[in-house]
C-alpha cells in the first residue's frame, strides 16, 4: 500500500486531498439537487407515501398558479432594480475615492450595511417605513407628501423591499469599485488627461474599461443576490399584503415548510424552475471563467 502510494504520489495526492470536500459537497449539494428534480414529479405532504404525478406539478405551476405568476414578476423586478446597486456603488466609490483625513473610517462606515444581517436590515427598514412612526413618512412629510404605507400597499411593497435590499448591496458594489479604482493605471489617466479627457468622458472611455473585472463580479453577486432574496421578504412582509411580495425563493419555502404548506413536490417544482433560471447566469459565469482559464494558461 505504502509503496504503491510512493510510486503514484503525484497522481493520488490530489484525490486524497479532494475526498473530504467532494464527499461533503456530493452529499449536501449535488445529490440534493437530483433529489429535488425527482421530488418535483411527486405529490407528497411530507408524512405519508409520495404519489407519482409526472409533470402535473409543473403543469399547475406554469399554467394555473397566479401566485407563481406574481412571484415571477417580482423576481423580474428584483433582477431589474437590484442592478441599480452597481451604478449606485460606483457613484459612492467615486465620491469616496479621495485621500483626505479620516477617509478610511468613512469608507468603513459606508460599508457598514453590508456586514449587518439582512434580518436586521429588514427590521430597520420595516420601522423606517412604518406608517405611524416611520422616518420615511416623517421625511416625505417635510415636502408635503404622504403618509404612505409602503409595505401595506401591494403596488409599492416589493419596491420598498428592493430598496431595503439595495442598501447593503450598494455598499458591497462600492467596496468592489473602491478596490478596483485603486488598481486603475495612473499613467493611463495622466495620458488621457494630457489628451484633454476629463469628467464623464474620462470615466466612460478610460476608467470603466479598466474597472471591467470589478463590474463583472458586482454583476454576478447582484444577480445571485436578487434571485436569492428571501430574508428581507420573510421579515418585512412575509409575502404579503395578499401575497403581492412573493418571489420564487419565498414561495417555494411557503409551499413546502410554512404552517399551511407541506406540499413538498410542488415546492420542489418551484425550486427546479428557480434553479433553471439561475443556471442561465451560472452558465454565463462559468463560460467567462473558462475563457479566462484558457487565456491565462
Amino acid at each position, binding site marked *: 500500500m505504502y509503496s504503491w502510494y510512493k510510486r503514484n504520489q503525484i497522481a493520488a495526492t490530489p484525490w486524497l486531498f479532494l475526498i473530504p470536500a467532494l464527499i461533503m459537497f456530493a452529499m449536501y449539494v449535488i445529490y440534493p439537487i437530483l433529489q429535488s428534480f425527482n421530488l418535483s414529479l411527486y405529490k407528497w*405532504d*411530507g*408524512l*405519508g407515501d409520495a404519489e407519482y404525478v409526472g409533470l402535473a406539478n409543473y403543469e*399547475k405551476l406554469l399554467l*394555473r398558479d*397566479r401566485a407563481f405568476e406574481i412571484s415571477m414578476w417580482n423576481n423580474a423586478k428584483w433582477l431589474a432594480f437590484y442592478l441599480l446597486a452597481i451604478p449606485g456603488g460606483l457613484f459612492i466609490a467615486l465620491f469616496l475615492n479621495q485621500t483626505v483625513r479620516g477617509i478610511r473610517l468613512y469608507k468603513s462606515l459606508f460599508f457598514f450595511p453590508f456586514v449587518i444581517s439582512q434580518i436586521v436590515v429588514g427590521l430597520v427598514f420595516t420601522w423606517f417605513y412604518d*406608517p*405611524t412612526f416611520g422616518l420615511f413618512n416623517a421625511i416625505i412629510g417635510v415636502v408635503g407628501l404622504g403618509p404612505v*404605507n409602503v*409595505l*401595506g400597499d*401591494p403596488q409599492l411593497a416589493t419596491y420598498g423591499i428592493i430598496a431595503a435590499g439595495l442598501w447593503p448591496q450598494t455598499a458591497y458594489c462600492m467596496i468592489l469599485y473602491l478596490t478596483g479604482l485603486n488598481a486603475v493605471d495612473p499613467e493611463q489617466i495622466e495620458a488621457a488627461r494630457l489628451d484633454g479627457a476629463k469628467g464623464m468622458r474620462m470615466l466612460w472611455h478610460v476608467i470603466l474599461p479598466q474597472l471591467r473585472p470589478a463590474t463583472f463580479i458586482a454583476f454576478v453577486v447582484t444577480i445571485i443576490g436578487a434571485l436569492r432574496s428571501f430574508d428581507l421578504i420573510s421579515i418585512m*412582509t*412575509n409575502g*404579503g*399584503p*395578499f*401575497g403581492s411580495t412573493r418571489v420564487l425563493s419565498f414561495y417555494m419555502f411557503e409551499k413546502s*415548510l410554512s*404552517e*399551511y*404548506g*407541506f*406540499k413538498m413536490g410542488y415546492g420542489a417544482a418551484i425550486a427546479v424552475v428557480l434553479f433553471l433560471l439561475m443556471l442561465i447566469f451560472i452558465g454565463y459565469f462559468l463560460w467567462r471563467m473558462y475563457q479566462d482559464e484558457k487565456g491565462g494558461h
Partner: protein
Amino acid sequence: MFQYSKTLLAALAAATTLAGNASADNLTGDLKIFLDTSNPAPRATMEAMIARFQAKNPEMNIETTVIDREAYKTQIRNFLTANAPDVATWYAANRMTPYVNAGLFEDVSDLWAEPEIAENLASTKGAMTIDGKQWGVPYTYYQWGVYYRADIYKELGLSEPANFDEMVSNCEAVIASGRKCYTIGTKWLWTASGWFDYLNMRTHGFDFHMQLARGEIAWTDDRVRETFANWQRLVDLGAFVDDHQNKDWQQSLPFLVSGDAAAILKGNFAVAPLREAGLTDDQLDFHQFPAITPGIELAEDAPTDTFHIPTNAQNKDNARAFLRFVVSAEEQTEINNGKNLGQLPVNAKSSVDDDKFLQKGFEMLSTNSPGGVAQFFDRDYPAEMAKAAMEGMQEFMVFPDNLDDILERLEAVRQDSK
C-alpha cells in the same frame, strides 16, 4: 434534541398536597408527554396538572417536553414518525386530518365509548371525529365574539346590537364620533377569517359554512357573495382601522385600549393582554355576534385544543389513563380556571370560573349556539384552501372592489384540490 423541562415531578408531586381524591391509581412504567403550551402561564398549568397525575401514580416515570408553540406546528411532523411521545397536544377538526390520514394518531374511540366521557364530553365529540372515529380528547376551548368598550357605547348611547342592521347603525354612530368601529391586524391573515366565519355562519348557517369547508360549494356561488356583501357594508363604512394589513393582532389592541376603536372580534385570549394594558372590566364587555339572516340558527367559533396518542407511542395504556385524567371533571375545573388557562372546561360536569368573560362565553356556548360549534377557519378548512382564502379576505378588506377576482381565484384553488 428539544428543550427539556424535566421537572422533578416526583418532588413536585409530593409537595402538591392535593386534598381529597388523590386516590392512587398506581400505574407503573413510562409516560412521555410533548406539550406545545410554551407560554409561561399555560406551561405552569400543564406542569402542575402532570404533577397531580404523578401523585396518583407515584411509580410512573413521567417525562415532559415543552416545545415552542409555533415551532411545534412543524416539529410534530418529525416527532410523530421518528421519535413519538406517548401523548402530544394538537388541535381539533381538520387540523388533525393529515395525521389521521397518515395513520400517525391512535384511534381512541374506545375512550369515547366509556360512559364517563361519552356523557360529559358529547359537545366536542364532533370536532374530534373523522370517519366516524375519535382521534383524541379535548382539554380546553374558548369562545370568540365581540369585545367592546362599554364606556364608549354608553357615551354614545349605544346598546349591544340584536341584529346586523343594529350592528351597522352602531358602527355609523361610532364613526361619527371620530373613532373606528373595529380594530384588527391582518398581517398574519387569520384574524380576517374570524370575520368571515361569523359573517358566513350568520348569513347562511353552520351547515353551509362546513359544506364550503369541505369543498362542496363553489366560492363563486351567490350565497358566498351575499356573505361578502354583508362584510362590504362594514368595509365601505370604514369600520376597520387603517393599515391593518401590516399589523399583527397584538399591534391592533392599542387602538381599543386608547379608545380609537370601539370593539374587536376576537377569541377570549385577547382579554388578558387588554386587562394588562389597563382596561377594567367596567370598560370592557362582551357580546355575541348578532344574527344576520333571521331564522338562521346561531353557531359559534370555539377552537378546541386537544391531546392525542401517536400511533408509534410506546405506552398507550398509560397514555389512555392520562387522557381520562385530563378530561375528568375536577381536572377540567382546575386547569381552565382564571388563575390557570382562563378558558372553558370541556367536561359538562366541571364548573366554570366566575370570571365575567368566561361566564358569558360559557353561557353563550351552552345555551345560545344551537347551530353548532366551529373550530375556526384555518382549523376547519384544508390548509391550502385556508391560506388562499385568508389572503383573499385580507385583500377584500383593503380592496373590496377586487371581490370578483378574489372569488374566482379561490374557486380555482378549490377546483384544483378536489
